[in-house]
């Protein structure tokens, strides 16, 4: 009787371990093949990968992804501050007045925004921005990216704000600090690392988003566009378009772009891990 239970216990461990190993192997396999397919292409293309435009389908040279890089960079940098500041004010509202009906509504709204499929956001922005403007634009992309990243940054910031012990608030009020003063000069410094993590993770989210900008940016690949009002490209869009083509050089470019995207995410993730460790010390 005792033995049977012990065997069951052992078998259970073997099961848990082997399924987990499969899961982790799949995940690491993905990282490995992306980097091993992409990085050699980048090395072969050299600096041109960052400065040239994509090749024509059957051409011999690899070309580059400059339009997509510029587009991703500009859209991320424009959308990030909008997303973070809207999320910050909303998070302050819901944490400072947790019982106010408006706060409860905003908290629910933020959660529903997170559940909107990102491709739906793209269809909406197409109708209310692209159609009236008469053309695709980086601006439309910025708006779509802001919408999909808002619930994300909101969750981060409100979690950090809620983790501040009430004693800090009481201390600030007891020396007659106003509520805004308390937030700016007491709370923000306390959660400054958390805010930095929010900024990093939100930018990773924005950089990697595909579906939300599918119908709004225009995929302009003939040159680098720096204007917000003109069509542009983005790295995930380029990967998406090129990976499904039959052309070998397009697929190579697509792997190279994917490995670049993955590398930047890995760097961002490692930085946030480092920041978290610092907080614990």
């Amino acid at each position, binding site marked *: 009787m005792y033995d049977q*239970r*012990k065997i*069951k*216990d052992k078998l*259970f*461990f073997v099961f848990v*371990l082997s*399924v*987990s190993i*499969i*899961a982790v192997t799949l*995940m*690491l*396999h993905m*990282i490995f*093949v*992306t980097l091993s397919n992409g990085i050699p292409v980048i090395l072969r293309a050299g600096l041109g990968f960052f400065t040239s435009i994509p090749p024509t389908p059957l051409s011999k040279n690899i070309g580059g992804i400059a339009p997509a890089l510029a587009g991703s960079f500009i859209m991320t940098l424009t959308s990030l501050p909008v997303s973070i*500041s*809207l999320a910050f*004010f909303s998070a302050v*509202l819901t944490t*400072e*007045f947790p019982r106010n009906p408006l706060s409860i*509504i*905003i908290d629910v*709204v933020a*959660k*529903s*925004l997170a*559940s*909107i*499929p*990102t*491709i*739906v*956001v793209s*269809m*909406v922005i197409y*109708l*209310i921005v692209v159609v009236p403007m008469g053309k695709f634009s980086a601006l439309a992309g910025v708006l779509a990216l802001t*919408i999909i990243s*808002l619930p994300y940054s*909101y969750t981060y910031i409100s979690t950090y704000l809620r983790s501040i012990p009430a004693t800090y608030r009481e201390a600030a009020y007891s020396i007659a600090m106003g509520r*805004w003063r308390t937030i700016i000069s007491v709370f923000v410094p306390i959660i400054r690392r958390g805010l930095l993590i929010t900024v990093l993770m939100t930018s990773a*989210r924005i950089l*990697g988003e*595909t*579906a939300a900008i*599918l*119908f709004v940016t225009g995929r302009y690949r003939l040159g680098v566009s720096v204007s917000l009002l003109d069509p542009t490209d983005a790295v*995930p869009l380029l*990967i*998406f378009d090129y*990976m*499904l083509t039959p052309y070998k050089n397009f697929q190579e470019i697509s792997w190279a772009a*994917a490995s670049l*995207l*993955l590398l930047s995410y890995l760097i961002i*993730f490692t930085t946030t*891990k480092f920041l978290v460790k610092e907080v614990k010390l």
Partner: protein
Amino acid sequence: MAMGVSRKDKIFFLSLIPPSITLLGILVVTVITILSNSLESLSLYGLSLIASSIWDPENLKYGLLAPILGSITTSTLAILTALVFSIPLTILIAEYSSGFVKNVLSSIVELMGGIPTIVYAIWASTYFASLLKQYVMDPLHAYFSIIPLFSCKPITGFSIFTAGVSIGVSIVPYVTSMILEAYQNIPQALREACLGIGCTKYESVKVLMSLAKPAVLASLILGFARSLGETTIAVATVGNSMYLSSCIFSPGITVSALIASQFANAYLYKYAESVLYASALFILFIAIVLSFVGLSMLIKWRVKVVV
């Protein structure tokens, strides 16, 4: 003084309203835009829109049955896949590992959760689809072809099944982190009580998992909502065919894959855009409802078990 403070409080509160209202505005505009643009096709085609499966814009014939069933099937497969991997991962992290190993494992899960889905998509279409065909679909077809679900021979590896499992792999980190959080929130006293009467680890895990069941269910509901909207992985692996089949090894389509492939040219055809908005309305509605159900189940569970 008291008056002054409360007036200042009011100004503080009012200053926060405009940015917060923006969030509400975005949600309202999204729902209204999708709703109003799908009305035309909904009133024109009515129920036949979801009762037939056809995409023939030149003859103005539309039926969304295949993508709707495709979305539901892939999402179901996705949460089953997520369940198979997430429970063992949770148990391994929470019960069998500690210190450095635990840190590494939970970091891997966290890391994978943030990887852009486009990377999952390119990996799944190039490698995972053929792996699945060789080691899962072909054997299942060989031995269980009597079951209608497995009755057709997998040809390319791109199928409803592949899309479902690939999306499932991509939501494993999301589902695992929710189940893990719930599991670790179960009061320590319950585990100790079980160990105190001589439970083996397996038996104590069984007891704790049964307590966490509602939270697991809620995580799966939230995972389903997320899978419904998944676009890039679906487009890359589902095979994009409007043909309706009872076999999950045949190529199919999902709502988001249909939108991704047809929306850009939809303005050329009458009603095509409106039909696509109607299909978007379908996934939008289900996703919002399910995330409410899932989130409130999680909150209810936490109040009951944790506190």
